[in-house]
């Protein structure tokens, strides 16, 4: 039997609820068990999970960084919704180029793309799961 693949939407801000934590622990457990994560889509206030310069105190978990590390370890596709991000003020590389080569605010391992990427993930994956605040 082929391993089940999940499409996962995270729509909670990192510090307002447990959504980002639960999503992270679920995804990490799934990957360690060999399940597929077709894509993780950050939508709504979930886009704040991708702010590159998040610098929590040293005695706290690093929410943004652990997403980046997980992406690196498992070649995970982390997609931030472009319209949710623009509305809230998180710009990708292209928009920053238009602003004169400003460095991107997007953390390592994330990419910015449209809602179509989320719909495609839902069509390709076997299971769809939402973590929301």
């Amino acid at each position, binding site marked *: 039997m082929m391993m089940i693949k999940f499409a996962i939407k995270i729509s909670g801000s990192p510090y307002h609820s447990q959504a980002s934590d639960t999503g992270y622990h679920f995804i990490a457990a799934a990957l360690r068990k060999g399940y597929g994560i077709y894509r993780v889509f950050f939508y*709504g*206030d979930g886009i704040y999970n991708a702010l590159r310069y998040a610098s929590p105190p040293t005695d706290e978990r690093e929410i943004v960084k652990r997403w980046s590390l997980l992406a690196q370890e498992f070649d995970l596709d982390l997609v931030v919704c472009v319209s949710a991000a623009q509305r809230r003020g998180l710009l990708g590389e292209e928009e920053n180029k238009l602003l004169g080569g400003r460095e991107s605010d997007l953390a390592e391992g994330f990419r910015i793309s*449209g*809602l*179509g990427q*989320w*719909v495609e993930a*839902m*069509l390709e994956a076997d299971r769809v799961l*939402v973590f929301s605040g």
Partner: protein
Amino acid sequence: MKKNFLYVIQSTSFDGIRIQEALDEIMTVAAFDQPVSLLFLDEGVYSLKRGQNPEILNLKNVVPIFDALEMYEIKLLYIEDESLKIRGLSTGDLILPVIPVSRSEIGGLLENFDVVLTG
């Protein structure tokens, strides 16, 4: 590839822009030629209430978007009867025709779709 989608709308139009972003997602699913239905329950039934004027608060009115759903072939709107009743509403207070379902049928209804999502 075709999947049958159900979006569950559980919040009013004033709970941040949750509904607005849900509608953007729903339109995108429809643009991929996928069949989409909506189920309104809990606070979500208020989002279909007649006479809303979010413009007074400088908020965007989502009613025209709901109106446009039909053009996107989104025709099946379910609503939980008990959610309406406890809020003192009936289907006549709503901007769109809806199909009432009872609370005890919800779990079964959800299983009729391939993907169930939270709006």
